[in-house]
C-alpha cells in the first residue's frame, strides 16, 4: 500500500454481508428514506456473492425478521421448514437416550429452519433493489484510523492481481480507501479487521476472552422414500458421543425442503486433547446409529465449516468507538443457550441503523453519540434473553458432570448460578501437552471409511464447498515462525493444525526422517478461522485473500 489509492467516500459503510449488516443496511435505508435523508450506503463482502460465505444450522427465531418485514413469508423469504418439532438426545457410542425434559430455551416452536446462505442472498437482493451499493468480491484488508487512533475513518479494500511473491501482475487493480462517516463491522466470527481495531483501541475484554466453537456442516439429499422426510420429528439436537462430556459441543439434524437435511457437529475449541480432530468427530457422528439410519442412502450436496463466537454476554466487546459500531458475531451477539445468533445479529444491525440515523441527524459520529448503540442493545431483548445465558457457555466448558451442576444452578437463579461471572480461558490455552514418550503410532489407529457420496474425506468436502482461490497470490495465512511448527509444536502437540483445520490447509511433511516441513494449501481455506483461534502458540494469523476467493456456499 505504498502508492496513492483512490478514495471513495460514502456516508455509511457496512463491512461483511451477514444477517446483521444486511438487516442493518435495509433498516437504515428505510429509515433514511422515511426521513428524506439522502445518503450513500455501501456494503462490501469478501465472498464472490452475497451468501457465499454464510453458513449456519440454522434455526431462525423470526423475531427480528418480523420487525424488519412483518410480511417476510409473502416477500418470498426462503424458509426450509416451518414446523420445528424437536427431539433432544444424549448419545453414547451405540445408544441414544431422549432427554425427557428440555428447558424452555431449547424449545423452537415459533422458529423455522433456514439455509443462512439462501437467506442472506435473499436479503442481499432486497438491499440491492432498495438502492444500497452492494460490492461482493471486495475484501476489506485494513482499517483506516484517524491520526490519533481515536476514531475510525473507513476501510481499505485489498489490491487485486498480486502474485505469489507480492509483485503486480498484468491484471493488477489497486484497492480503494472506502471512507465513511460511520463504519459498521459485521465480519462474523473472529474478524480480521476487528482484530486491527482491538490492537489500536482495545475493545475486547482481557479478563473474559472471546471463545469459539467450530462447526462442520453438510446438506444431504435423502432418497425420496426416506421415512425421515415424512416423519413427525423435524429437528434433532444431540450431545454426548462422539465428544463425550469433557468437550463442549453437540450435533444437529434439521429437515429442509426438496428431500434435503442439514447435518452438523459443533465442537468447542476449548478442547484439551491435541489429537482431537473436529472433522473426524463429525464423521464419527454420522456413523452413530441414530444419524446413520436417517442419512442412509443419501448424498452430500454441499459441505462447509465455520466458527461461532460463543462466549456470550460477558464477552461482548465495547460496541461503539468514534466512527464505528460492531454488530453480530463481531460483537459476540450469539445466544449459546438457545444455539441461535441470527436473530440477535439482525437485531443488533437494526439497532446500529437506528443509532446511525440519530448520528446523521446530529451530524456527529463521535463515540459520545454512537455510544447510544450500547444502550439500545442493553435496553433490547438481545440483552434480556442473553443475560440469563451469561454464564452458560462458561458452564459447558466445565468437565464431566460438573457442568450440569452449574447449568442446573443457573436454571433456577436466572443465570447467576454458582459463580457470576463464571470465568473462562482462551481457546488457544487449553491444549494439554503430549507426554515426552508419546508413541506416534497412536495417531493412526483407525482409518475412517469414505465412500465418496455420503462419507467424505476432507478434500472431497472442500470440493463440495465450491472453494476456490486464485493460486497465484500471496499466502493469506501468516505462520509467524515455522521453526516452532517443526520442532516445539511437533514435540508438544504433534501439530494440531493438521487436525483442527477442516480443509487440510496445513500438512506436515517428513521427506527424510526427522526433517519436517510445514506445507500450506491456502487455496483450500474455508475462511473458518479455527487455526487463528486454536493454535497454541498464537503462531497463525488469518488475513483476507483476494476478494472473491473462498467457499461458494449456496444451500448451507
Amino acid at each position, binding site marked *: 500500500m505504498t502508492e496513492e489509492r*483512490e478514495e*471513495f467516500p460514502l456516508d455509511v459503510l457496512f463491512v461483511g454481508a451477514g444477517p446483521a449488516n444486511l438487516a442493518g443496511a435495509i433498516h437504515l435505508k428505510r429509515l433514511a428514506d422515511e426521513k428524506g435523508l439522502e445518503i450513500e450506503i455501501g456494503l462490501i463482502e469478501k465472498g*464472490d*456473492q452475497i451468501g*457465499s460465505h454464510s453458513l449456519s444450522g440454522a434455526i431462525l427465531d423470526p423475531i427480528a425478521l418480523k420487525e424488519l418485514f412483518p410480511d417476510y413469508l409473502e416477500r418470498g423469504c426462503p424458509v426450509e421448514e416451518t414446523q420445528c418439532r424437536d427431539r433432544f438426545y444424549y448419545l453414547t457410542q451405540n445408544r441414544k437416550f431422549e432427554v425427557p425434559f428440555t428447558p424452555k430455551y431449547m424449545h423452537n416452536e415459533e422458529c423455522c429452519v433456514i439455509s443462512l446462505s*439462501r437467506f442472506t442472498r435473499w436479503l442481499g437482493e432486497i438491499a440491492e433493489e432498495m438502492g444500497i*451499493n452492494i*460490492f461482493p468480491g*471486495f475484501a476489506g484488508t485494513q482499517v483506516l484510523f484517524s491520526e490519533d487512533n481515536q476514531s475510525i475513518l473507513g476501510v481499505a*479494500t485489498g489490491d*487485486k*492481481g498480486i502474485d505469489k511473491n507480492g509483485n503486480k*501482475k*498484468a*491484471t493488477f*487493480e489497486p484497492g*480503494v480507501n*472506502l471512507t465513511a462517516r460511520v463504519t459498521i463491522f459485521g465480519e462474523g466470527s473472529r474478524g480480521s479487521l476487528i482484530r486491527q481495531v482491538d490492537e489500536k483501541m482495545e475493545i475486547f475484554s482481557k479478563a473474559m476472552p472471546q471463545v469459539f466453537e467450530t462447526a462442520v456442516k453438510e446438506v444431504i439429499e435423502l432418497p425420496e422414500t426416506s421415512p425421515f422426510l415424512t416423519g413427525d420429528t423435524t429437528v434433532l439436537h444431540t450431545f454426548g458421543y462422539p465428544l463425550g462430556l469433557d468437550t463442549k459441543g453437540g450435533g444437529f439434524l434439521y429437515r429442509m425442503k426438496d428431500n434435503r437435511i442439514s447435518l452438523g457437529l459443533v465442537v468447542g475449541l476449548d478442547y484439551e486433547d491435541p489429537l482431537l480432530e473436529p472433522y473426524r468427530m463429525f464423521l464419527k457422528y454420522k456413523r452413530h446409529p441414530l444419524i446413520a439410519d436417517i442419512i442412509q442412502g443419501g448424498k452430500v*450436496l*454441499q459441505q462447509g465449516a465455520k466458527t461461532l463466537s460463543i462466549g456470550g454476554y460477558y464477552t461482548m466487546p465495547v460496541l461503539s468507538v468514534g466512527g464505528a459500531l460492531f454488530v453480530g458475531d463481531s460483537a459476540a451477539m450469539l445466544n449459546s443457550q438457545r444455539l441461535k445468533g441470527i436473530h440477535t445479529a439482525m437485531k443488533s444491525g437494526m439497532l446500529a441503523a437506528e443509532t446511525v440515523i440519530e448520528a446523521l441527524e446530529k451530524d456527529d459520529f463521535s463515540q459520545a453519540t454512537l455510544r447510544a448503540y450500547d444502550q439500545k442493545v442493553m435496553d433490547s431483548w438481545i440483552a434480556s434473553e442473553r443475560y440469563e445465558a451469561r454464564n452458560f457457555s462458561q458452564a459447558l466448558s466445565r468437565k464431566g458432570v460438573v457442568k450440569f451442576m452449574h447449568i442446573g444452578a443457573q436454571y433456577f437463579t436466572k443465570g447467576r448460578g454458582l459463580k457470576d461471572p463464571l470465568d473462562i480461558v482462551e481457546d488457544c490455552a487449553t491444549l494439554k501437552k503430549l507426554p515426552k514418550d508419546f508413541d506416534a503410532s497412536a495417531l493412526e489407529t483407525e482409518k475412517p471409511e469414505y465412500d*465418496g457420496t455420503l462419507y467424505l474425506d476432507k478434500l472431497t468436502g472442500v470440493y463440495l464447498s*465450491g472453494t*476456490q482461490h486464485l493460486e497465484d497470490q500471496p499466502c493469506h495465512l501468516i505462520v509467524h515462525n515455522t521453526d516452532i511448527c517443526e520442532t516445539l509444536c511437533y514435540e508438544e502437540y504433534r501439530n494440531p493444525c493438521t487436525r483442527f483445520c477442516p480443509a487440510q490447509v496445513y500438512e506436515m511433511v517428513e521427506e527424510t526422517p526427522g526433517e519436517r516441513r510445514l506445507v500450506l494449501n491456502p487455496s483450500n481455506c474455508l475462511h473458518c478461522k479455527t487455526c487463528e483461534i486454536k493454535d497454541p502458540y498464537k503462531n497463525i494469523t488469518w488475513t483476507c485473500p483476494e476478494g472473491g476467493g473462498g467457499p*461458494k456456499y*449456496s*444451500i448451507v
Partner: protein
Amino acid sequence: MEIVVLVKQVPDTESLIQIAGDGVSIKTEDLKWVMNPYDEFAVEEALRIREAQGGTVTILSMGPAKTVETIRTALAMGADKGVHINDPAAEGSDPLATAKILAAALKDIPFDLIIAGMRAVDGDNYQVAPAVAEFLGIPQITQVIKEEISGDTIRCHQVVEGGTAVIEAKLPVLFTAQRGLNEPRYASLPGIMKAKKKPLDVKTLADLGVDAGTAGTANRKVKIKALNPPPARKAITMIQGDDPVAQASELVKKLHEEAKIL
C-alpha cells in the same frame, strides 16, 4: 472503431449443478450466474482495441431480467453501453434462433468488429457466434488467441489441431475468443459505481422485428432428450517411491494390467 461484444450469462461451473425433475434441464434455484468465461476474454480484447484505437464497446446479451447483472459486469470492466434482449418468448431458444435474434439486434447497432466467446460453458454448442456472422453476411474467424488490426484489415491467430493458422480478413469481421487471447481485468469498485450510470437499452423481440413464433423452447429445432451427469471420476492412484525408473515401470505395469490400455 465500433465494437460489439456478444455476452452470455451462464451458471458458475463451481455451482451446485443438479438435473431438474423434467430430466432435460438443470435446477436453477441455487445457481450462481456469471459471465461466460470465454466472453470475458472477448470483453477484455474489445477494451484493449478501444484503448489503442478509440471508439465504443457495446455489450449485447439475451436472457431474463438477471442477465442485466452480467451486462453491468462488462460495463464495470469498462465497456460503454449495453443492449439487453429480454423477452419471455425468447427463453429456451436454440442456437439458431438465438443467433437470428442477435443478428436482428445488430441491424440497429453500428459495428466494425464483433467479438464473442468461442463457446458458452453451459450449452457448449460453439454455434451462436458463427451463425450470427452468417446471418449478417460478414467474415468470421473462430478460436482466436491473438489479433492485430491495421487499417481496415484484421489478422488473427486461430488455434487449429497441431498448430496455429494465421487468417486475415477485411472489417467488418466477427471473431471468437479462445483461452490464451488475454487475461481479463477485474471490475474495479469505482468501475462498478460508474457502470450503474452507463446506458443500457432493453429490447423485446417485437422491438427487433423478430417473430416470436420462431423463438423460445416451443420452436426449438434442436431438442434435448435427456441430461445425464458425467460418470464419477475414479480415485487417483499415486505411484509411491523415490526411484523414477521403478516408478515408470510400475506405471507401465498398471496401465497394462489394471487400466488395460497398453
